[in-house]
């Protein structure tokens, strides 16, 4: 039942800047290819090139040695575009802010597709489905619908287009369905839901699809819930080899075995009083944030972390995890909260000035989720570590970027780095500050497998130096094993 293999050799450059060069990018027709690799390495660009989405005016592109304008006119490319779909990475910019969601779900060829109700009810649990019809009547705005909801709307569009295959099943293989970081804004429950719908349609139509992701925990999920599909799935990894990109098969067992081998971070010794105690019941945007140690939130307690401890904060996406850690950082303008930090009682009434003078970068620091936003794209690598000792940083850099032989790396501008490299720098900047409290928001986002292991090693080292760490991550494979259950806190919004 194996289909043809489509192989592409792609060159993309912008002016003198070479962006991507790959020789053996191949897709198995009728299969779902999961494409792993650190973010920003060029996975999206390759897929867009194949789908015919790049602008030949802006980029110099050749596919299989052919000028891109010619490639765009090929029947194969047209078929891909006519019957396929591309779910873009950033859901917030890919919805028209001046058009109601329901209209966006029904325009173009989607107008002829069967109703979206069944897909919606699965992507929004039946429990929370009631709100969907209201939601579809809104114009997409930055805060409502939330990132996860926007993502699910885009996924619904993709599934609607796939459902069109019912009338033209012969196009299933020639078309291409690309999902670029489909779970980037979804929590694990909805990620699994997405995977199950995808697999269901695939059993029906056997189409060609690519799922671009850096979320290795999808592997575990597929192994757990979609075992029968594994034969129709190819796991591939994009990596950099001598300034070029190459694609190799990725054995899922490498990841699953590593995840299984992780041990809980044990306390070095019984340590003194907690460094931070954040009281449950903080208020923001008219919601009360309840912290508890049980998943149901029945017995609220304070979030407290002792030196040398790693704690995790869990909640479905959109509950306010990031908002809560921003409160700890004194960066939430509208919140009302109370906490004890290093013996000092801090509330929302304390002036920002206090945090700036005593805490930021000295006693607490935070790694923000989006490395793209958190680092200055126009700064050089050395500027990121402004104020820190150069030799130590250089040593760390050579450790964290072992395959980087570029002597000019120290002076390279951040905008020319890949997303994974940015994320590593983002983490390094905060990890090397040696603050008493370190907050990590989705630290493994955008990292490849090896970088993930390095982050965990460094976390352990810092732990030995009595640093307290608070982690928000949806990668349960890693952090459920690393963080002891009594240090896992659940967040509920009421």
């Amino acid at each position, binding site marked *: 039942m194996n289909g043809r293999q489509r192989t592409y050799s792609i060159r993309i450059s912008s002016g003198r800047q070479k962006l991507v060069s790959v020789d053996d990018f191949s897709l198995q027709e009728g299969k779902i290819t999961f494409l792993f690799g650190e973010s920003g390495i060029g996975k999206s660009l390759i897929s867009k090139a194949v789908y015919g989405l790049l602008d030949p005016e802006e980029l110099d592109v050749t596919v299989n040695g052919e000028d891109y304008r010619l490639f765009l006119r090929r029947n194969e490319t047209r078929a891909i575009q006519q019957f*396929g779909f591309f779910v873009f990475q950033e859901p917030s910019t*890919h919805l028209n802010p001046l058009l109601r969601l329901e209209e*966006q779900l029904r325009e173009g060829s989607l107008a002829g597709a069967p109703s979206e109700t069944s897909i919606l009810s699965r992507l929004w649990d039946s429990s929370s489905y009631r709100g969907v019809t209201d939601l579809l009547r809104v114009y997409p705005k930055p805060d409502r619908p939330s990132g996860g909801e926007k993502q699910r709307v885009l996924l619904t*569009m993709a599934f609607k*287009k796939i459902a069109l295959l019912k009338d033209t099943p012969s196009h299933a293989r020639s078309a291409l369905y690309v999902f670029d970081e489909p779970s980037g804004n979804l929590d694990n429950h909805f990620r699994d839901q997405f995977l199950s719908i995808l697999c269901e349609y695939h059993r029906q139509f056997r189409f060609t699809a690519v799922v671009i992701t850096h979320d290795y925990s999808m592997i575990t999920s597929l192994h757990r819930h979609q075992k029968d599909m594994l034969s129709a799935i190819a796991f591939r990894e994009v990596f950099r080899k001598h300034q070029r990109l190459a694609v190799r098969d990725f054995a899922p067992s490498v990841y699953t075995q590593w995840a299984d081998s992780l041990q809980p971070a044990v306390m070095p010794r019984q340590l003194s009083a907690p460094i931070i105690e954040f009281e449950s019941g903080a208020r923001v945007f008219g919601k009360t944030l309840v912290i508890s140690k049980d998943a149901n939130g029945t017995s609220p307690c304070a979030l407290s972390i002792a030196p040398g401890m790693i704690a995790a904060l869990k909640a479905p996406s959109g509950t306010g995890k990031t908002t809560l850690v921003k409160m700890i950082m004194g960066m939430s303008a509208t919140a009302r909260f109370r906490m004890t930090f290093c013996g000092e009682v801090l509330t929302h009434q304390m002036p920002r000035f206090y945090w700036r003078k005593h805490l930021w970068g000295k006693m607490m620091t935070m790694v923000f989720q989006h490395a793209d936003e958190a680092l200055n794209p126009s700064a050089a690598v050395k500027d990121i570590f402004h104020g820190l000792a150069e030799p130590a940083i250089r040593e760390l850099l050579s450790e964290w970027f072992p395959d980087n032989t570029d002597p000019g790396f120290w002076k390279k501008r951040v905008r020319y780095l890949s997303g994974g490299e940015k994320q590593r720098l983002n983490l390094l900047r905060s990890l090397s500050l040696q603050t008493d409290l370190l907050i990590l928001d989705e630290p493994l986002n955008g990292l490849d497998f090896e970088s993930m292991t390095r982050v965990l090693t460094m976390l352990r080292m810092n732990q030995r130096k009595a640093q307290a760490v608070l982690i928000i991550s949806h990668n349960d494979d890693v952090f459920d094993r690393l963080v002891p259950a009594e240090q896992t806190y659940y967040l509920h919004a009421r």
Partner: protein
Amino acid sequence: MKKIVAQHIAGLAAVGTVFFLLSLLLPDPRLHENALSMDALAAQTHASAPLGGMVFRFLFVYVAVMVLTYYGAQTLALFRFVRTKQMTTELPSPIAAAGTFVAWTILSFLLFAPGYVIVYSLKSVVDTSSIVLMIVLGVVSNGVLVNYAGKFYALLMNESRKGYVQTAAVKNVHSSYCWNTPDGIRMRRMFRLQKRFPGHVLDHILHNARYQYRSTLKEQASFVITGLVIIEMALNIQGHLCYELLQSILFKNYDSVLGIMFVIFCAVKITDLAVDLWIWRADRHYANLEPDEAISRQ
């Protein structure tokens, strides 16, 4: 909404106060050493009689120029945008490209020319006191049209690079920019007052660009006024509001200067208020605060 109105009224009051203080500060012309001749004073009192008519005429021209500029800038920018998009698929012959460049540059000379240059070169040919000429000059000269067409074009280009346009294309919403093909652009729709391209991605782009352009209207208002004032002053014809203004400045009749300026300022401020209310209303709509209210897309 009350806040917006209050802000604008406060602005008017503040400027009014400043003008009032200035009128107290600046010396009375009659006490001035270089007091103007009695003739000039007489001429002035004579001319200032139909002030109301002058103000009305000025405001009428202003409104007409604003509307025409809004329409013209959109049409011109849209045309240029579609041409740019067509150029990405079909490369024109070098001769045609060079021809367009030369023609566009010559036209630009007219569009960028300050009003007074055009006024003077036309003075011997046409009747420069006509109100139609005023309106045409107000739109075409001083770079008004070409500037705001440029801004609108930049907005269109910017929108066309956004993600939702790609998503729409992936949904097979029409995205060809050829003239008059089934999946392309109907040319006659380009010239309509209400420009709509249903089922085409340009409809999304245009709608978003127009939405963002509204705040530029305020800027456009004060620039249009600047242009009109310059043209009227340069025309140097008695009976125009700004001619009176210029004469009053030269004869140091400051009360009259400040009075006329305040009238003009009020016109801009009222436009600002109207634009702000319009933006406020549509923003509320698109921020999902008034879900049931239907707002026309224009």
